[in-house]
């Protein structure tokens, strides 16, 4: 597991070591997802806006008429272009992320693995089952 450390001030005049807990690829994928989801939600709202109320003819009504200012794409065709394009970018980011986790072994940092879980189940059980007296007496 590769982590990057930097020296920062500890606030008392001295220095302490800070650790980037998440590797570069993970952070990059995170921000790429932030952009993708922003676009996907915005263009999704524009796609919602295209749903018409036909009144008598087809008795369906719009659930919510989203404000145009929240929507991306301008019209249905434009919104679909944004939506479909960023769908692929989102998917590609996911593939890169999962591939990185798998091949770098970094998934051990993210997922619970059996060595880390050993003994912890008993520690957590009182909290999980809402028995405060047991929890305060326990090691948590």
């Amino acid at each position, binding site marked *: 597991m590769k982590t990057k450390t*930097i*020296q*920062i*001030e500890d606030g008392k005049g001295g*220095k302490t070591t*800070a650790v980037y807990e998440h590797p*570069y690829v993970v952070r*990059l994928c995170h*921000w*790429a997802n932030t*952009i993708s989801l922003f*676009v996907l939600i915005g263009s999704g709202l524009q*796609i*919602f806006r*295209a*749903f*018409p109320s*036909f009144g008598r*003819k*087809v008795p*369906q009504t719009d659930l919510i008429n989203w404000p145009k200012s929240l929507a991306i794409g301008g019209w*249905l*065709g*434009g919104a*679909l*272009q*944004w939506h*479909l*394009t*960023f*769908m*692929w*970018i989102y998917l590609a980011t996911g593939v890169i992320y999962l591939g990185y986790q798998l091949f770098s072994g970094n998934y051990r940092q993210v997922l619970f693995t059996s060595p880390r879980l050993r003994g912890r189940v008993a520690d957590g059980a009182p909290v999980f089952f809402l028995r405060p007296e047991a929890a305060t007496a326990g090691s948590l």
Partner: protein
Amino acid sequence: MALYTDKRKFRVASRRELLKLLPLTALGAFSVPKFQEPLLKKGLAFSDWISDKFFRSHHLAPTFEATDLTPLDKFYVNTFDVDDPEVDLDHWSLAVSGEVQKPGNYNLEVIKALPRLSQNTRHICVEGWDVIGRFGGARLADFLAMVGADPHARFITVECADSYYESVDMATALHPQSLLCYEMYDKPLTREHGAPLRLGMPTKIGYKQAKYLTTLTVTNVLSKVGYWEDQGYSEFYSI
């Protein structure tokens, strides 16, 4: 908040950080008007390309029981211009041209002489609504075989009496459920639903189901794709 105490170190580190952000700034190209449209067009074309690869020629779209049908009077009429382009139904014929052995004008009797197929299928609009309708007509594949269309040609294009136009990839045109539709709900097409002849392809989105057909061309090159596609909609849009 001063995380980095050493200014020089800070500069080196931040330059490296900026460089690492390059993949994200690449996404920023989408905010540049000059690149935006070509990039989005590429994204859509990629989507269409994938859809094309996943299209299964003999996989059938779902069909429904008669009890599931949307009543004809609730089947929404969607047109881009007029509901009735006033086709002269008595003197109508379909002008066939392009990569075919027998080009010419084919009237409705010739098309009705082909085996008739009636199917209850879902008609889905890009706007988000859908209806289940009963569509009857001749298989497009049978018609293309009759006129001797080159099955290796890439597209068929149609033009309509209301100056709408559309194109369909050959794999979809040859799909066993793709119809030259002259009936809806076992009655001849009404004018607002595209009399006398429309496309009925349950593997495609609604705006591809062109009405009031006047010409059909088999071709390898598309000079224009379709009325809506040329404004930015998906060209393939299978469902």
